[in-house]
């Protein structure tokens, strides 16, 4: 009998393995047309052709080399004159032309350094999330939490490498060329949609062909660490009850599909970023560093998964009242939060993709201000209402401020940043109580409130507080004239642009709907096929040993003392 079961299990695992390999091969085959047969601009893997005089700009962002005149443009005559004059001057001064080429290369190199280094800071946030979420759960699940955070990084990156990056940035050069990094000209085709109505990028699958390029890979590094952030946000809401196989599926889904699709719409030059020119909605949907693109997606995906999984055993008593499962390590929680704050110094200022954009100092300071304002608000709120300031809520408040300032950090003044932090601090407190007491969505670490609700708030705050000093020409609006001003940047409701507010409100809400409904649809089916929860016995014992064969704190287990 046992042999029969063993044979049956073996056959089933062989079958599963074969299906996986077939699926991967099919995916690779389907993508190979994009990977290897490409007629677009030649990629530059060595980085020796990236950055020349066309990359030279003055402090205001005006290019040294005038754009090639476009015969269809009404300004064709002016453009042609400027272009011809420049060509004549270059012919007279060949040394200057060579120097301009070097200067352009150095400019791109400076921005490479900034982008890569800030990317490494964001990468370090992984450690912060691991400590924060692990500290917030019960001791019996510590190893489980660490493994989830670890596996999130591993599997989401593989999915992003295979298809995610191409879906998100495969058409970046069309509407959202990162000129600070040399423009990534090889990423130039939509898989779905075209022009201003792009829905999915189509170049750079498996980071091959057009994706095997120095500029493009610099962008990949910076963007994959952002995707990872969305990837481990979900851990906070689904931990202590999700089985490991289901978690891997969630990560592949986020890294390969859920995150890249919305990312393409907003950052990859997709349709939402172009709403300014196509629908006259402000400067298009603007999310500077990802309040919605990263945190909103992660938060609302987490919410859908938490709803599907249901609350942890014993979280709600027979009377329906919530019960507290106190954090097991406050030291981890606070240390993790500070690591996240530190990583955020890469997250927000790094999103300029260049140190030649001096707005970075404003962004860094705004980020810190919102963080402390959020934390102070949540802390004092708890102090007043519940008589003792809750340390975990003080940490949640700091993260809420950070999440909310992520979208507006580049467009607002320090005063507005403090205000945004205060709003986020209030929202996160309300959100935690609302989820726990009214919606009864069990979210052990507050991921839905911190990242979902405050992410939504952050994007809306762009539409309220943006003061027009930054972002001129963003997504093609305001370069020449906007709201009666030359060079008017992204402007919110308080500074006179209602359409920007409308755009932000709709866009942020769409983000929530997309993340929640896509996740709910996919994983509702998965959960019907096979329950994503661990068995009740495993959950009561703690997932460490049943799922991974070892406990997070082996000194607690008698076995380690005896043997």
């Amino acid at each position, binding site marked *: 009998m046992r042999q029969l079961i063993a044979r049956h299990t073996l056959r089933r695992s062989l079958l599963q393995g074969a299906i996986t390999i077939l699926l991967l091969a099919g995916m690779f085959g389907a993508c190979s047309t994009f990977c290897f047969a490409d007629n677009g601009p030649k990629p530059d893997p060595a980085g020796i052709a990236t950055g020349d005089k066309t990359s030279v700009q003055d402090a205001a962002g005006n290019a040294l080399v005038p754009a090639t005149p476009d015969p269809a443009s009404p300004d064709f005559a002016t453009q042609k004159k400027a272009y011809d004059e420049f060509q004549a001057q270059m012919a007279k001064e060949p040394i200057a032309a060579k120097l301009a080429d070097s200067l352009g290369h150095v400019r791109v190199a400076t921005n490479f350094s900034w982008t890569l280094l800030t990317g490494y800071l964001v990468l370090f946030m992984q450690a912060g999330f691991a400590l924060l979420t692990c500290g917030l759960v019960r001791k019996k699940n510590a190893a489980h939490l660490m493994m989830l955070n670890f596996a999130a990084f591993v599997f989401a990156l593989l999915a992003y490498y295979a298809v995610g990056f191409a879906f998100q940035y495969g058409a970046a050069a069309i509407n959202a060329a990162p000129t600070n990094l040399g423009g990534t000209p090889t990423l130039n085709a939509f898989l779905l949609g075209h022009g201003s109505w792009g829905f999915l990028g189509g170049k750079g699958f498996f980071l091959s062909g057009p994706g095997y390029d120095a500029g493009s890979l610099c962008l990949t590094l910076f963007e994959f660490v952002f995707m990872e952030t969305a990837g481990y946000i979900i851990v906070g809401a689904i931990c202590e009850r999700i089985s490991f196989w289901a978690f891997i599926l969630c990560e592949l889904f986020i890294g390969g599909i859920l995150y890249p699709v919305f990312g393409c719409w907003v950052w990859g030059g997709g349709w939402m970023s172009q709403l300014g020119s196509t629908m006259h909605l402000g400067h298009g949907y603007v999310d500077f560093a990802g309040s919605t693109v990263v945190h909103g997606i992660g938060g609302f995906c987490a919410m859908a998964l938490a709803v599907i999984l249901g609350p942890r055993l014993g979280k709600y008593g027979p009377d329906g009242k919530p019960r*507290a*499962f106190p*954090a097991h390590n406050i030291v981890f929680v606070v240390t993790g939060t500070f690591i996240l704050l530190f990583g955020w110094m890469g997250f927000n200022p790094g999103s300029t993709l260049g140190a030649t954009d001096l707005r970075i100092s404003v962004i860094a300071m705004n980020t810190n201000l919102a963080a402390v304002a959020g934390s102070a608000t949540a802390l004092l709120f708890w102090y007043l209402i519940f008589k003792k300031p*809750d340390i975990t809520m003080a940490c949640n408040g700091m993260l809420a401020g950070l999440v909310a300032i992520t979208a507006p950090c580049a467009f607002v003044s320090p005063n507005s940043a403090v205000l945004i932090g205060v709003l986020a601090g209030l929202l996160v407190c309300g959100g935690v*109580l609302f989820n*726990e007491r009214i919606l009864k969505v069990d979210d052990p670490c507050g991921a839905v409130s911190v990242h979902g609700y405050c992410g939504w708030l952050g994007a809306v705050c762009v539409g309220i507080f943006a003061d027009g000093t930054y972002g001129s020409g963003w997504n093609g609006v305001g370069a020449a004239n906007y709201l009666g001003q030359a060079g008017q940047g992204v402007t919110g409701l308080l500074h006179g642009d209602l359409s920007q507010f409308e755009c932000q409100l709709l866009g942020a809400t769409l983000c929530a709907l997309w993340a929640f409904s896509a996740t709910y649809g996919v994983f509702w089916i998965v959960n019907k096929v096979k329950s994503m929860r661990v068995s009740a016995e495993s959950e009561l014992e703690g997932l460490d040993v049943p799922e991974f064969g070892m406990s997070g704190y082996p000194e607690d287990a008698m076995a380690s003392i005896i043997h």
Partner: protein
Amino acid sequence: MKRIDAVIRPERLEQVKALLSGLEIQGATAAEVRGFGRQRGHTEMYRGTEYSVDFLPKILLTIVAADERVPKIVDAIIQGGKTGKMGDGKIFVTPVDEVIRIRTGERGPTAL
């Protein structure tokens, strides 16, 4: 021989130990334990949800001594452990049938 089990406040352990060391006792065992008495703990708040802390941390101090030494030891524990507030703990005294020193196999009071 008697066994003395004293449940005391953790922060009073040093005082109790200091007073006991003047009595030339042969040994003591202390363990970190949790428990409740008549007061039944109290409630705290975690992220807006109340939870009860029923079992409070205490020290369980165990001493085995000859009968005639017991009153002085008990007095020392009371003197060192008393604050006068709820939660000072209790002392239990029970008879001991036999004591054996593992190293030598000695039995009875000499094994203490």
